[in-house]
């Protein structure tokens, strides 16, 4: 049975698209048929991070409006044969994503894929709502700072009250924390919230901690999800996160900065 996973946050710029790309690529690496949908209509980004921006012909809104079919709009990843991207439209606005239209597309994708990853726009308005509405699981992407945590809390409230599962009184959406851009040095200096503080406020299970890493920016400039960079600590953290999602036990690395220190010493 296919699962729909939303990557959401409330606050902007915390790493949703980075997480969507790497999580989707990680599932595809594990031989699951995976599609990642860009819900950020008007501010499309995912295609850049996935390195397929020159292959976008039709998009999500075209499919909803019946101007193209799914086969025409889905872009096959050039590295991973199990991975597909459904890009957003850059020229429309979020209202183009109607409930009925999105539902039809998601139901159709569920027949063809194991995992459907929905990269949500920031905010709590229509775009973010429609992205989480059909979700079975939510990856709540949060940075270790007060405003990001507050916004994640707000999004959790919406998931608990306004997702399809909540409205239909079904088993609730599984909420999982992804703490990104974790800079253990700054945490130890007290500039940023520690993992425990965030967990205490949000009270949801931790799926992964992704360290702050320069390799993320490099990867997105190259259009390669960072999980595919074998020398990246953030990439390793995403690989651990995918393994945990699939039920494997992995210790949480990257929580102390001793590692950063060694890395700086040896230039890894």
């Amino acid at each position, binding site marked *: 049975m296919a699962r729909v996973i939303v990557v959401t946050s409330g606050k902007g710029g915390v790493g949703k698209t980075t997480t969507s790309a790497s999580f989707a690529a990680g599932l595809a690496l594990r031989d699951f048929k995976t599609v990642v949908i860009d819900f950020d209509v008007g501010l499309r980004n995912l295609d850049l991070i996935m390195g397929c921006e020159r292959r976008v012909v039709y998009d999500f809104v075209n499919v909803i409006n019946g101007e193209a079919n799914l086969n025409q709009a889905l872009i096959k990843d050039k590295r991973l044969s199990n991975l597909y991207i459904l890009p957003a439209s850059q020229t429309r606005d979020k*209202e*183009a994503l*109607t409930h009925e239209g999105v539902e039809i597309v998601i139901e159709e994708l569920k027949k063809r894929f194991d995992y459907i990853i929905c990269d949500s726009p920031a905010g*709590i308005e229509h775009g973010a709502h429609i992205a989480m509405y059909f979700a079975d699981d939510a990856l709540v992407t949060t940075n270790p700072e007060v405003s990001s945590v*507050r*916004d994640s*809390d*707000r999004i*959790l*409230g*919406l998931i*608990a*009250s306004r997702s399809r599962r909540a409205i239909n009184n079904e088993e609730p959406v599984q909420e999982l924390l992804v703490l990104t851009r974790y800079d253990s040095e700054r945490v130890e200096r007290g500039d940023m919230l520690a993992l425990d503080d965030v967990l205490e*406020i949000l*009270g949801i299970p931790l799926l992964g901690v992704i360290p702050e890493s320069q390799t993320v920016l490099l990867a997105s400039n190259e259009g390669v999800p960072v999980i595919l960079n074998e020398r990246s600590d953030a990439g390793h953290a995403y690989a651990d996160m995918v393994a945990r999602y699939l039920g494997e036990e992995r210790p949480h690395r990257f929580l102390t900065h001793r590692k950063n220190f060694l890395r700086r010493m040896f230039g890894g």
Partner: protein
Amino acid sequence: MSATTTTNPPEQSPQRAAFELKGSLFTLTIFYLQSSDLAVITQHLRDKIAQAPGFFCHAPVVIDLNDLHDPVDFTALVALLRQYQLIPVGIRHGSEAQSTAALAAGLPLLPKQRAVKRPDTAPEPQAPEKPLRKYTRTRVYSKPVRSGQQLYAPDGDLIIIGTVSGGAEVLAAGHVHVYGSLRGRALAGVHGDNHARIFCSSLEAELVSVAGNYRILEKPSDIAKLHQPVQIYLESERLMIRPLT
């Protein structure tokens, strides 16, 4: 600029209407106006805001004119209220002249209340047909109350098994119990019950209130109680915060 310009019709999605109208009921704050003197009103608003900045944070209010027969400068009044983060949405119980002036200032007239009763006048004695204290339903909520959520028990107690996040608000006509950390706002006795109390396992609240007596927790003496199980109640109009153990 040329005289003939072509304009494209705006983009439309033909299958969707631009809006829908539906009736709905709201609980609104009533602003009983007792003076038409803007300076007096300003002073009063200032005092209130000084006690609790942000308490009325953009609350919609209805201006009630039952106690005031003077003419009112509604345009100036609206500007003043908005400056203090109250948003007037209409008036009621105005005289004919007041109502005309309000309409001219863009304030709609809201229907009269059937029995006009001031909130602080003693209730009229009633024949004791029903038992004095009728059974009221307690609302039990066993999920975290997240930032931006509001939970209300309009005619009884409210029990929350979980935390109340910063930016969340829980209100009850009766007591409020929070079996978790209270980090947002808690208001007990919102209809004026002086005996209502707030109980919580860990006090980290932004604001607490019993029967309209509210306090924001920022003084050192308040902060000393933070992260402790406490109860909060009124003792001759003073809000007391006491450890539970």
